């Protein structure tokens, strides 16, 4: 790879960056909008409860609301961290995040 290639490939045009960022944020905001009004609050409260017992990363949580016929499926996907090797049993009242 010569020097010219290096500069041409490395620099992503800012318009491309703008489009990629917008694709992500618009998709997320459209999901928030399409769900019922209580969905953001429901999501937040469930996470608060889970966080009382396990240390979770809020960014690692996916919420999906699917409609199949007249039945709605709320899917919450929370990635739990690897348990530390020494203490596999964490005390119940352990509050790791808020």
């Amino acid at each position, binding site marked *: 790879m010569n020097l010219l290639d290096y500069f041409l490939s490395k620099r992503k*045009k*800012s*318009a*491309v960056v*703008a*489009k990629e*960022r*917008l*694709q992500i*944020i*618009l998709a997320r*905001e*459209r999901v928030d*909008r399409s769900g019922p009004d209580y969905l953001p609050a429901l999501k937040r409260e469930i996470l608060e409860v889970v966080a009382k017992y396990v240390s979770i990363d809020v960014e690692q949580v996916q919420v999906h609301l699917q409609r199949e016929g007249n039945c709605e499926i709320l899917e919450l996907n929370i990635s739990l961290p690897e348990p530390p090797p020494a203490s596999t049993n964490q005390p119940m009242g352990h509050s790791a995040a808020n």
Partner: protein
Amino acid sequence: MATIIVVTSGKGGVGKTTTSASVSTGLAKRGFKTAVIDFDVGLRNLDLVMGCERRVVYDFVNVIQNEALLKQALIRDKHCDNLFILPASQTRDKEALSKEGVGRVLDELRDSFDYIVCDSPAGIEQGALMALYFADEAFIVTNPEVSSVRDSDRILGILQARSKRAETGSTPIKEHLLVTRYSPRRVEAGEMLSLKDVQDLLGIPLIGVIPESEVVLQASNSGVPVIHFDQSPSGQAYDDVVARFLGESRPMRFLEPERKNFLRRLFGT
């Protein structure tokens, strides 16, 4: 029975008032009796852009609160006989725009006009919500820029959920994307979202592209809607928008950078 058009965007400064002034003028020039209403209560601006600021006596809120008759508040445009401006109030706040009051004024206008253009304020508060609530069609004014695109998407969500048509379950508001302040040169350099990018992101039909141009500022400086500047690309682009809105098919123009020849480049004209 008039068609109600809202000119909206969410974000401020993208060209809503410029568009309202030019689209309403374009419709009136083609013979349609048109009213244009400033919904930006507290910050009146449409009158200035249309050059009738010194003729404002009564305003939209006066009519809503029965302090003036509609025909007393409507200002006849100095260029087009069948164009009327209903200015916003400067002294009240946006809460003065009640759904009942706005509905009543629009009903009264509907009987005697062909088109009613509602110039929305920025934001998503009462003034903006009332400007779009009764609409049949919407112009979504968008700059090729991240915050404008995001806010336009937000406004589309509101049109689809909180307008009268959405609430009553009738045919949805017809949406038209209008991209303004477009700079083909910067798009070519990869510094600005392209028309296709904006269309892909928002996913609504395009009605026109207004190129970035100093004529728009000259027009507002002099209080003459830019569509009257029929030698300028922006004026011509607005004329295309109105023609397309009325069903004519016109190709998009001003999408390529202007190529200056050697001599013009040398003399910087």
